[in-house]
Structures are given as C-alpha cells and as structure tokens.
C-alpha cells in the first residue's frame, strides 16, 4: 500500500513513517511531502492509497489539501487521515464536513493510529462490498 505522509515538520514525518512501518506497512512505499501544494502535485502524478496529513502547514494547509483532493475527480475517493495538534471543535467539524476519513489529535500513539487506520479500511471495504 502506497502512503503519502504530509507534514511541515520533518521529525513528525519520520515519526509517522516509523509508526506505519511498525504497523506492518512497507517503508519504501511511504513517501513524504512538506506542505499541501507539494502533496497535491505528488498525488496528481503518481498513485497513492492513503494520505496522512497535518493541518498547520505553510503554502497549503491540510484542510485545503483535503478540499482539493475531494474536488479533483481523479482523487476524490482517496482516504485521508488527519493527524494534527488542532483540537478546536470547529476545526474538527470543518474536517468532517470536508470529507475527512479519520482525525487524530497530537500527541498520539501507535495504538490510536492503528485503530483509526483499521476503521478507515473497514469502512472502505464495507462501502466496496455494498456497492
């Protein structure tokens, strides 16, 4: 499974990568982008199966990236997991309304990440089975 990790802090990108590898995802299939703009360019040029993105980033924020993904016909079904320090009610609602698949508040741990990822893939499988 090809995963794009989007965060302006290189330390957080590495932490998420390490956790994903720990959960059994293939390290070479994990790629990184440091803001929404770069992430969108990568998403349009190569296939990905999942996006894990931060909210607060320069140039293009995570919520704008999510909206851009949902607005792009070739990407609109992409699962997006938001991992962010933003814990305002309004922001969580905004992310839900924009069509986020999961929302993790930092600081978080491997158990939470696993739980949210499992839920995302279960829902996708259920939607695929009922379609």
């Amino acid at each position, binding site marked *: 499974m090809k995963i794009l990790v989007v965060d302006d802090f*290189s*330390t957080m990108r590495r*932490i998420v990568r*390490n*956790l994903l590898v720990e959960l059994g995802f293939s390290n070479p299939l994990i790629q990184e982008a440091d803001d929404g703009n770069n992430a969108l360019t990568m998403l349009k040029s190569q296939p990905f199966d999942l996006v894990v993105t931060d909210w*607060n980033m320069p140039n293009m924020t995570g919520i704008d990236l999510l909206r851009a993904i949902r607005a792009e016909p070739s990407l609109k079904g992409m699962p997006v997991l938001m991992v962010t320090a933003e814990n305002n009610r309004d922001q969580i609602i905004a992310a839900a309304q924009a069509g986020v698949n999961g929302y993790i508040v*930092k600081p978080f741990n491997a158990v939470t990440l696993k739980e949210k990822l499992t839920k995302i893939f279960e829902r996708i499988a259920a939607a695929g089975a009922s379609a």
Partner: protein
Amino acid sequence: MSAVLSTLDSGSMPPELKDLLSSTDGAAFEQALDALVRQREQHLFRALGLLARDLHGAVSRLGHDLAQEGVPGRVADVRKHLNDVLEMSAQAAHRSIDFAERMSPEADALAQNAEQVVAWAKPGDPSAVLANQAVAFAANCREGLNDMVMAQSWQDLSGQRIKKVVNFIESVESSLLELVHLTGALAGREPPPVVEKISGQDEADRLLSEFGF
C-alpha cells in the same frame, strides 16, 4: 428650577450668573447663555489641542527611543534565536530517531538469535537461561525504542508554538518599524555594526589556526 436655585449658595455664584437668573429680559438671557456655552467650548478645544500636542511629542520620543536603543534590531535577533531553537531541537530529535532506527534491527536480530539458542538448548542449560534473558531484553529495548521515537513528537508540538510566537513577534516588529518610520526617527541613524558569527568548533579551529594556534 426653584428647587435647584434653593440648593445653590448665592454667595458662591458668579455675579453674571446671578444677574442672568434674575433678569426678566429674555433676549439678554439667551445672549448670556450663548456666551457661557462658547466659553466652555473654548476650554474644551484648548484641552484637546494640548492633548494632541502631548500625544505627538510622546509618539516622537517613543520612535526616537526605539531607534536609539536598537529595538528593531533586537527584535530581529530574538526572532533569529527562536528560529535557531527550532532548528536545534529538530536536529536533536532527528539524532534520537536515527539512534532508534539503528538499534531496532539489532534488537530484532538479538531476539531472533536468542530464540534459536533457546530452541536448541537442553532444558536447564545455562545458555538457555541467558538466551531467554536476551529475548526479554530485546523485546524491552524494542518497546523502549518505539516509545523514544514517539516521544520526539515534543519537537513538532513545541515547534508549532515557537512558530506562532515568531509570527507574533514579526507582526510586533513590523508595527514598531512602522512607528519608527512614521516619526522619522530613523533619519540619519547609523546602521548597527554587523557581528559575524562562526558556525561551530571546526570553524573556530580554522579561524584560530590562521593566527598560529
């Protein structure tokens, strides 16, 4: 009106007002009242003028003091210090993650080899006891290393706060500069001397070697 008048001490009342109140001439009453109001307005305008002059003087002095004390430069320094903290904390966090990524496969290899020893050893063999210890130790190490990687998220969380402070300082800095420019205090001021800084011990050694150290 009579109730108000009765409370006034006629001795402390200005004579003009006393005459005005007792006058039966309506036109004269109006005229005198207008004169009183105008007099009052003039006091107000004079007070406003003084306030405006004081405010202008205070803003000019503030702008001048800010420029003289090098406040804009110091604000830029503070911003740079915070960005340095951001950079140094990122480097420290990366070093910790480097260490964990290097040690994790070693812990896995130790566990694997020790498990083989346990499988081959006869019951009660001292090597089996040691190998079991190694398996437990490797598992603990692995868990500890994962925790260590996770703990580095402090850099992201504290870094985001530092970035917010840097942004705030930037807005204060631009307001200060605007104030200094507005008051014209920068005119004729000499730029502060540039302090060259070295990047680390290597550069310090190179610099010292040029002087024969």
